[in-house]
C-alpha cells in the first residue's frame, strides 16, 4: 500500500461511465478523482445519485481498505481502492454472505446495474463473492432506465466468463421477482449472486467468428399478474422469431408479488408487472440478448412486449460481432486484465462505434492500458465486423499481489 500514496490521482469528469471507472480503479489499484458529477447548470439534481452512492457502498463491502470521499455537494468523488476481498467473513459479510440493501430511493435502476460491474470484480476477489441484493429498490426485471433483467445477466453475460476461464460455481438466483414500481411504489425483489471461481489472470480471448444463430432461449416472467401474460408474450415473440429459428424455447415463470414487512408488522405488496428476456445463441457460442418489461404505469399488452423483445433481439443480432453491446464492457475489461498477450475479439461496427465503447477504450488508456488495435475482419470492408486487438496488462488481482 505504500506505493499508493505516491501514485497520483487519475482524473475523470462527469457522471457517465461512473461504475466502469470505479471498477477499473479497483482492478488496477489506482486511486481516482471524478469531478463535475452532474455539475452542469442544466442538471436539476447535482452530484451523485442514490444508486451511485449505493454502488460505492457495495464496493466498500467487497473490498478492504477502500477510502471513499465526496465533496459537500457530491459533485466530486475521490476513490482509493483497497483489496478485493469478496464475501470473506468478518468484513461486512455474515456467514459468507453480504446482504446489500437497495433502498427505495434507488428504484430507478435495476439490480443488474449493480450486478454486472460486480461480476467483473468478482473474478479477481481473494475469497468467493456471495451477495444478496434486496430491499425496496431491488428490481429484478428490466427497467425503463434501460437496465436489463437479472435473467439476461444470467443467460447472456455470465456464460461469457467461461471464455476467460471462469466457469465453476457462478450463479444468479432470483429469490423474489419484482418489477419496476410506479411513482411512489416500491419493488422489493431479492436476487443472489454467487461467484466462486476466482482466477489469477483471465485467459486470453480469441473470439473472431460470430457463427450463425442456432437457438433462442428466454424467460418470460409475470410478477403478481396472471401467467397468461407470459403465454401471450411468448406466443407473439415466437411469431416473429420462428421465421428465423425454429429452435425457440421460452420458459415461463409466474411469481407472486413480493411482500415486504412494514415497521408495524403488516405486509405491503411490491410492484407488479411482466416482461420477457430473450437470448440468441450462435453456433460458436456467441450470445445476443433482448429485454422488454411492461412499463410501471402499465398499458402495454403482453403481445406488444413479446414482439418488441423479438425485434430487439433481431436488432442485436443484426449489429453483428461476437459480443453484443450489453456485454461488451465486461468482455473488454476482462480482456484488458488478461495475461500479457494479445487477445482478439470481433465486434459489430455499431457496437464498437458507440459512445460507451469509445469512452471505455479511452478510460482503459487512462488507467495505463495500451490502445486497441483495429482492423477489418476478413475482406468485407465497411460492412463486416472489426477485429479489436487488446494487449492484456497482466494486472489481474493486483490486490492479492500487493497484499
Amino acid at each position, binding site marked *: 500500500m505504500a506505493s499508493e500514496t505516491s501514485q497520483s490521482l487519475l482524473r475523470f469528469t*462527469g*457522471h*457517465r*461511465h*461512473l*461504475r466502469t471507472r470505479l471498477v477499473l480503479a479497483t482492478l488496477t489499484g489506482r486511486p481516482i478523482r471524478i469531478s463535475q458529477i*452532474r455539475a*452542469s447548470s*442544466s442538471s436539476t439534481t447535482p452530484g451523485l445519485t442514490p444508486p451511485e452512492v449505493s454502488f460505492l457502498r457495495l464496493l466498500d463491502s467487497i473490498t478492504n481498505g477502500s477510502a471513499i470521499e465526496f465533496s459537500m455537494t457530491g459533485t466530486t468523488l475521490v476513490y482509493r481502492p483497497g483489496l478485493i476481498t469478496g464475501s470473506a467473513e468478518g468484513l461486512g459479510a455474515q456467514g459468507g454472505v453480504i446482504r446489500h440493501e437497495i433502498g427505495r430511493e434507488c428504484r430507478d435502476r435495476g439490480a*443488474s446495474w449493480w450486478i*454486472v460491474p460486480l461480476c467483473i470484480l468478482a473474478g479477481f476477489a481473494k475469497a468467493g463473492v456471495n451477495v444478496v441484493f434486496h430491499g425496496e429498490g431491488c428490481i429484478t426485471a428490466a427497467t425503463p*432506465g*434501460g*437496465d*436489463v433483467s437479472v435473467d439476461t445477466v444470467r443467460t447472456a453475460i455470465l456464460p461469457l466468463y467461461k471464455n476467460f476461464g471462469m466457469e465453476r460455481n457462478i450463479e444468479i438466483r432470483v429469490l423474489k421477482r419484482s418489477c419496476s414500481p410506479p411513482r411512489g411504489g416500491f419493488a422489493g425483489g431479492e436476487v443472489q449472486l454467487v461467484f466462486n471461481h476466482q482466477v489469477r489472470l483471465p485467459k486470453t480471448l480469441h473470439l473472431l*467468428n*460470430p*457463427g*450463425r*444463430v*442456432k437457438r433462442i432461449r428466454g424467460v418470460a416472467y409475470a410478477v403478481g399478474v396472471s401467467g397468461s401474460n407470459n403465454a401471450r408474450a411468448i406466443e407473439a415473440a415466437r411469431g*416473429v422469431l420462428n*421465421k*428465423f429459428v*425454429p429452435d425457440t424455447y421460452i420458459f415461463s415463470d409466474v411469481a407472486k408479488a413480493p411482500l415486504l414487512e412494514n415497521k408495524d408488522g403488516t405486509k405491503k405488496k411490491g410492484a407488479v408487472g411482466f416482461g420477457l428476456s430473450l437470448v440468441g445463441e450462435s*453456433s460458436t457460442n456467441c450470445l445476443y440478448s433482448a*429485454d422488454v418489461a411492461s412499463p410501471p404505469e402499465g398499458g402495454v399488452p403482453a403481445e406488444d412486449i413479446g*414482439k*418488441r423483445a*423479438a*425485434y*430487439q433481439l*433481431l*436488432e442485436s*443480432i*443484426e449489429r*453483428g460481432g461476437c459480443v453484443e*453491446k*450489453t456485454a461488451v464492457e465486461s468482455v473488454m475489461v476482462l480482456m484488458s486484465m488478461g495475461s500479457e498477450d494479445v487477445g482478439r475479439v470481433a465486434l459489430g461496427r455499431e457496437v464498437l*462505434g458507440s*459512445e*460507451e465503447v*469509445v*469512452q471505455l*477504450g*479511452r478510460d482503459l*488508456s487512462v488507467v495505463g492500458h495500451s*490502445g*486497441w488495435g*483495429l*482492423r*477489418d*475482419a*476478413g475482406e*468485407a*470492408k*465497411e*460492412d*463486416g*465486423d472489426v477485429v479489436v486487438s487488446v494487449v492484456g496488462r497482466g494486472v489481474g488481482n493486483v490486490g492479492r499481489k500487493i497484499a
Partner: protein
Amino acid sequence: SNLRENAKRMHGRNRPYRTTDLAKMMYNLTLSPAEVVKKWRGELEDDEEDVEIEDEVDDDFFKKRKSDNPEDAEDRYIPIFDYAALEEKWEDEENIEAFKSRFAIGHLNGKSGDGD
C-alpha cells in the same frame, strides 16, 4: 430499409465506417466520444441541424432546455428503439430473407453469410 442505407453508405461522399478512421479518432481527445461516433458514421453536421439549434434558441427563454445533451444523459444498457419502425423493418419479406444468412437454417438459401 437496410439496402438503401447500405447503398448510401457505399456511395456516400466521405466513406463512413472506415476502420482506419475510427482507429485515428479513438484516442484523439479533442473529439468527444459522441463526435467520434458521429464522424465515423458519416453523419455530417449539415445545415438541417443548424436550423434546429436556432429554433431552440428562440424559445429557450420560456422552455426548459431539452436535455438531449449527451452529457446529461444517464448510462443505459438497452437502447431506446422506435418499435413501430422496427416492426415495419422486420415484417418486410426482403429484409427477412436477407437476414436469414445469420441463422443456422439460412445457409441453404441465398447468399453465403459471414464466417462459417
